[in-house]
Structure formats: C-alpha cells, structure tokens
C-alpha cells in the first residue's frame, strides 16, 4: 500500500487493475474517458484495451469476454448507456460468468452533456445492482466490491460516479502490485440453455432476478458503504440522506455543528431497505440531498408507506432542494441550514463587480472546422438551407459569427434530422455535419437510410483524424489502436461509396476557394452526396509560422474577425493584430482578407 495523487477516473482504472481486470472497452465521453486511457497507460500487456466504435459495440464485446470468465469493464458517459441500452437490457437476463462492471459516468450540471439523466434509474430499469462512489478513495476501493458482487451473483453491475468524483483528485491509498487479485479466465463454455436468449429463458431469468434483488437489498443493508451515522445529540429527530459527491458536501456542512442522523446510500439499487428502516427509526423529518433525480427520496417515501412510518421525507419532490443542476458546498449548506433551522451566515455585501468578460468555449485558432463551416456558409449564401450539426468540437460552429449549427440532438442524429426536415420543408437545401469519430460511431446507418429512401441532402464529414472533443482518442479511421498496433485505416470515402453514394469528394477545407466551389457544385446535385473535409486537428500538428498583418495594407474592415471569430485574431490599440502565441498559420484569414493584408505563414 502506498499513497498516490490520482484523478477519480485514474483511481477507478487502477482499482480495476488491482481487482484483476482482463479486458476493458468503451467509447470516449466526458467525464468517463480517462478510465480507459489510464488503464491503457498502466497496461503491462496482460489487459486487452480497446476503444470500440460505440457503446453498443463495447457492451457486447464486454459481455462476450465476461461469458469467458474474464473480469471485464465497459466505460461510457451516461448518454452512451442509451446507445448500449439494447444489449444491456438483455444481458441483465443472461448474466455473466466473470465479473462485469459497466462504468457509466453521470454529469450533473450538465457540464458537458446533452442530458441530466440519472443512471441510478437505468439500474432500476435494467434491474442491475448499482454502485455510487462518493470520493476518489471510495471509487478506488469500491471497484473491487463491484467485481466481487458481479461474480458472486453472475450479473453485470453498474458503477456510476459523477463528474466531480471522476475529475476530482485526491491523495489516496493505492495497492502495490503484489496485493493485486489475480486469476485466469477459463474461456467460453458452450451451453445454449445459458447463453441463448429465448422467451422461456427470459421468463425464468426474470423470476430469478426479482428474487435475487430482494436478497441483494438485504445484503446491501449490511454493506458497510451504506452507512448510518448516528446524530451528535441522541435526541435529534432529524436526518439527512445523501449519496455520491453530495454526501461530501453534507459532511462539509456539518463540520463544527451538532450533526443530525446521516444515511449514506452507496447502492441506490437494489435499495438497502432494511438499512433505510433502521435510519428512519425515531426520525420526524428527513432531508434528501441528491443530484440529478430524487431516487433516494422516492425510495424513502416508499419505505415510509410500506412500513407505516410517520417520517416526513423532504427533497427535490417537496421543493426543498433544487431540481436541476449540480449541487455545491454552498447550495447544500443552504438546504441543510434551512432544514435544521440554522442561522444563515451574514453575507457582507461587496461592491458590484465590473461586467466580466464571458469566455464561452470556441473553436481553437487554426481549427479546420472553422474553415469547413465558413466554406459552406460562403457557398450557400442567400440560399434557404438547414445545417444539422452533431456531437463533437464542431458543435461550437453554432457560435457567432459562424452560426452554422441549426440543430444538435445526439450522436449521429444530424444526418437523419436533415432528412426529416427535407421531407417537410421543401425548397430547403439540406446539410448534415458529422465528425469522423461520430461518423463511425453512429452516422453510417443514417447515410444508408438516406440512400435507401432517396433523400436529397449533402453529408459533410469533418475529418480531423481524431476524436478531438474528448481529448484525442484514436478511432477506426486513424490506423492506431489502444494496444499500440498500427492497423489499416477504415476509409470514410470507401464506406460512403460502399453504401451507395455516387458523389463523395475529399477536400482540404483550408484551401478555401476549392472548398467553396466544391460545396456549390455538390449541393446542386440531386440525391445523397458527401464532401469529406479532411484536415488534421490543429492541436495535434506542429503549427506553421504565424500569420503577420501588413499594417500598411490593412484597412481595418475587420472582415477577418467578423466572419471567422478566430481567437488568434485580436484588436490591440485599435488595430487588428495576430496573437502569435495562438496562431497556427492555417492561412484561412489570409484567404478571407479583401486587401491581401495577411501573410507571413508558410503556405
């Protein structure tokens, strides 16, 4: 045992390695990505690590490995579980042989997600046990428990940290390699009565699952991480129930205070009912401090009804806790102070601060997506168009001045949404923008759908040869794997031609004139056609010499600034200048300047 300063996600990975992990797979998504990356970085070669093309593929691959008796982990963000829901729901009935932990990171806020969905509900829906760690250390330790329960009950289990656990850091106790659990997967043993899902099997499995979950509720009532902490004053008739990172905010709030009775719920499903009854005993009122949905609050309300307990349960449902967004130390303190009748601290009013500059996320200086959006915008100027976006860095193309993302829903949706708009809004020229990783993850079916159903649309693939938004993970088009192999690249152009597109043009978006002309020509064609804008992510390449503005030529029209919104172009002392610390010399602005005043970079 020794101390290390680890990120929550790294702790999860290291905990899994210490628990004898054999295989890990997943799809990148904030805040889950670093679990798989850390495993790859610490892989001595005995763990199989892969980025799968999407979460469904990963879930199925992980299932196959767990059928063999391997200890398997599948990682994704919460919306990724929607993609993997199909295999998940069936796998819950089939079960596993080796321990299988499905690591799904939730994102209260949301800080970088489309939804504030709560995976604890998914656990109840799929009837799978769920573990909810509250700190980096607990995440490290709890992974071992998750594998153990999974193997003991032959079921996959969900492990769902939230962003502040995933991305929090702490100095924690970490095992030395000689303390690791070791084992060897036995391999796949044929047994159609076990591995082939049929209605009969499902009926029997359903019965067994319900029985098991009642048993697990009792087992979890004794699980030491579902803790009841007695009040400072035995006469106190108030209690607080919480979970995850919020429990640490509760703990912070009651430092130096006469603490009420506490209930920390680490397994929201199956809910530790007996422990809950024990907690509720002698309490008049309970405040539930939760993030995302009021899962504990509903469970406790149910327990009160079932056991005829006269305890008032408060929380999100009663308006005592905010219903959306993430909790903070401050928000939790306020809720508790109100509940406990504590005086709120007097706030010394400061002078109102000056108006603060807003810093929304923007496409990086030199980002090729900027050039792609600008090319399409220029080519289609004055035409009635719809630009359906997708998930990735290029969602930021919605910001002014580009303003080129009309819709964004979920991974791979844009290619289908644009078809729907085209059907009902005739006369609109339909575009869908999709990144290379998203294309492989979930846009290929949309392309096939468009071809088969005779849609009229242009698919723009923004191919920057990486999964940029989540921190540059490889994908099928990059020719690299997480096992360090160099492999054949899957060609996006060949895929599109393979599914029946006749026109697929590959263009460098930083060659503005060619890019604009290509868009004009291709958009005119009937049917489904594609343009692949291929240029590597600016973060991954060595920058060219920065651009230089010829002050004698510059007329100060600011066209470069007002049409591109590049962070590398600034105004200093009333003049347009290049911030050479940011400029990558991509040359886009020099092609936009009406008086040819920008040069300097190597082109």
């Amino acid at each position, binding site marked *: 045992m020794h101390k290390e300063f680890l990120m929550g996600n790294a702790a999860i990975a290291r905990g899994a390695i210490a628990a004898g992990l054999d295989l890990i797979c997943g799809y990148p998504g*904030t805040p889950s990505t670093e679990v798989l990356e850390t495993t790859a970085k610490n892989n001595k070669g005995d763990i199989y690590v892969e980025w799968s093309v999407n979460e469904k593929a990963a879930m199925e691959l992980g299932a196959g490995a767990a059928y063999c008796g391997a200890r398997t982990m599948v990682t994704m963000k919460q919306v990724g579980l929607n993609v993997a829901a199909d295999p998940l729901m069936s796998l819950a009935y089939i079960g596993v042989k080796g321990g299988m932990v499905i690591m799904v990171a939730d994102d209260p806020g949301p800080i970088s997600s489309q939804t504030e969905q709560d995976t604890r509900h998914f656990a109840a829906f799929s009837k799978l046990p769920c573990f909810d760690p509250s700190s980096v250390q607990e995440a490290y330790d709890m992974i071992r428990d998750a594998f153990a329960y999974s193997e003991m009950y032959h079921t996959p289990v969900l492990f769902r940290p939230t962003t502040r656990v995933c*991305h929090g850091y702490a100095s924690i106790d970490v095992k030395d390699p000689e303390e690791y659990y070791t084992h060897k997967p036995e391999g796949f043993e044929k047994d159609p009565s076990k591995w082939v899902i049929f209605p009969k099997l499902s009926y029997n499995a359903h019965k067994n699952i319900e029985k098991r979950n009642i048993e697990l509720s009792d087992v979890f009532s004794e699980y030491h991480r579902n803790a009841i902490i007695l009040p400072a004053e035995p006469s106190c008739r108030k209690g607080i129930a919480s979970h995850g990172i919020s429990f640490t905010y509760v703990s912070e709030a009651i430092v130096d205070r006469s603490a009420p009775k506490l209930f920390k719920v680490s397994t929201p499903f199956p809910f530790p009912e007996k422990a809950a009854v024990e907690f509720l005993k002698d309490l008049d009122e309970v405040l539930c401090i939760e993030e995302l949905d009021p899962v504990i609050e509903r469970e406790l309300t149910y327990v009160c009804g079932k056991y005829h307990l006269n305890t008032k349960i408060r929380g999100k449902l009663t308006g005592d806790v905010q219903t959306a967004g993430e909790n*903070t130390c401050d928000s939790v303190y306020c809720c508790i102070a109100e509940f406990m009748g504590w005086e709120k601290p007097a706030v010394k009013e*400061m002078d109102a*601060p000056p108006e603060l500059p*807003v810093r929304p996320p923007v496409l990086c200086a030199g980002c090729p997506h900027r050039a792609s959006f600008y090319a399409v915008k220029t080519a289609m100027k004055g035409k009635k168009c719809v630009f359906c976006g997708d998930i990735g860095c290029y969602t930021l193309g919605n910001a002014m001045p580009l303003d080129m993302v009309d819709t964004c829903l979920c991974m791979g949706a844009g290619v289908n949404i644009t078809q729907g708009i085209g059907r009902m809004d005739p006369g609109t020229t339909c575009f869908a923008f999709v990144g290379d990783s998203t294309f492989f993850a979930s846009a290929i079916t949309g392309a096939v759908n468009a071809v088969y159903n005779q849609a009229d649309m242009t698919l723009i693939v923004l191919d920057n040869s990486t999964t940029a938004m989540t921190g540059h993970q490889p994908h099928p088009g990059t020719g690299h794997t997480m096992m360090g192999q160099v492999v054949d690249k899957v060609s996006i152009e060949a895929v599109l031609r393979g599914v029946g597109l006749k026109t697929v043009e590959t263009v460098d978006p930083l060659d503005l004139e060619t890019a604009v002309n290509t868009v004009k020509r291709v958009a005119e064609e009937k049917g489904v056609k594609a343009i692949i804008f291929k240029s590597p992510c600016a973060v991954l390449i060595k920058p060219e010499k920065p651009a230089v503005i010829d002050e004698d030529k510059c007329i100060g029209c600011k066209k470069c*600034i007002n049409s591109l*919104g590049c962070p590398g172009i600034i105004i200093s002392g009333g003049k347009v200048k290049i911030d050479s610390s940011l400029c990558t010399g991509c040359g886009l602005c020099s092609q936009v300047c009406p008086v040819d005043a920008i040069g300097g970079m190597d082109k």
Partner: protein
Amino acid sequence: MTNNILLCGVGGQGIVLTSKLTASAAMDKGYHVMSAETIGMAQKGGSVFSFLRIGNEMYSPMFGRKQADIIIAFEPAEAVRMLPYLSDSGCVIVNTHPVMPVTAVLKESSYNGEEMMNYLKGCVNDLVIVDGAKACRDLGSPKVLNMVMLGAAIRSGFLPFTIGDAERAMEKNVKSQFVELNKKALNYIS
C-alpha cells in the same frame, strides 16, 4: 487545519499543471491533498479553475464561498469572477496581464483588465500584484507565468511549503531542460 487554495485563469495558462505541482509539494510534506478542476468543454480560451485543499479534516474536493485562504489568479477578470470564494482574511495573488476573449473582440468591447485591477484593489486587503507579462519578458519565455505565480504565492506565506519544496516537486514533474528556467521563475518574486 486545512488550506483552501483556488487557482484560476484562462485555459492554456498552465493552471492545471501548477495545481498538480502544488499538490505534489504538499504530499511530499506528508499532507493529504484533494483537488477539483474544470475539464472538458473548457478548451483553450475558456475560464479555468482548480480548487486545491491541503490538510486533514476535509471531505469534498471543492469548498464553498468565503473559504479560500488564497486565490492565485493568472488573469485579472478571472480573479474578480472567483472573488466570492475568498475568505475575509484571505490573500489574492493576481497577474495584471488581461486575456481578451473572442467575444470581446467581436463586440469590440474595451476590456483591458484595468477596471478589474481597480476593483480588486478596492476590496481585497491582502493583494499581491504580479506583472506577469514583464516577468515572462525578463525570463525570456511566455511559459513560465505559472511558476512565477506559484513562487509569489509561496512567498505570501499562505502555502504550507517552501520555495525549496516547490523546486523539488517541479524537478520531478518538468522535463530536465526546463528545470533551471522554472527555478528562476519560482524565485522571480522575492
């Protein structure tokens, strides 16, 4: 006893690395450390913060308003943004050099950091002003701002370790060819 430290600035200024280094120096002294920071959508150019806690009785990696013993701000507006977290007896180390956001350029706003500095001077008793741009010019590299800021923070006496401790932590975390330069940067503010 817990030290609550808040580092803030703009993406790309080296805040996350500084936070790691501070944590490393504190751990070497035997302290327990927790931290939390912005990751993800906040790419280059966004507001970035890192909460860092060193000490014993602490549960959450983040802390509440009015609890920071020290704010190390790499940019004046970001110092103002995070000021509600400063405790009444806390200290602010601030770099005077402003970073213009793209939106300010588009809207032709006149943001230059001066207003922010004046506001800080008006409401922070213990304010340490660092001319980061000058420091970087003097040291010959724009990449040493973070070490200059950390050095100034240690000198303020609000961190539980010395410049020497920070140097040793830095040596472990920085490529050998940059060690000397970073040492100079740590010692720039005396």
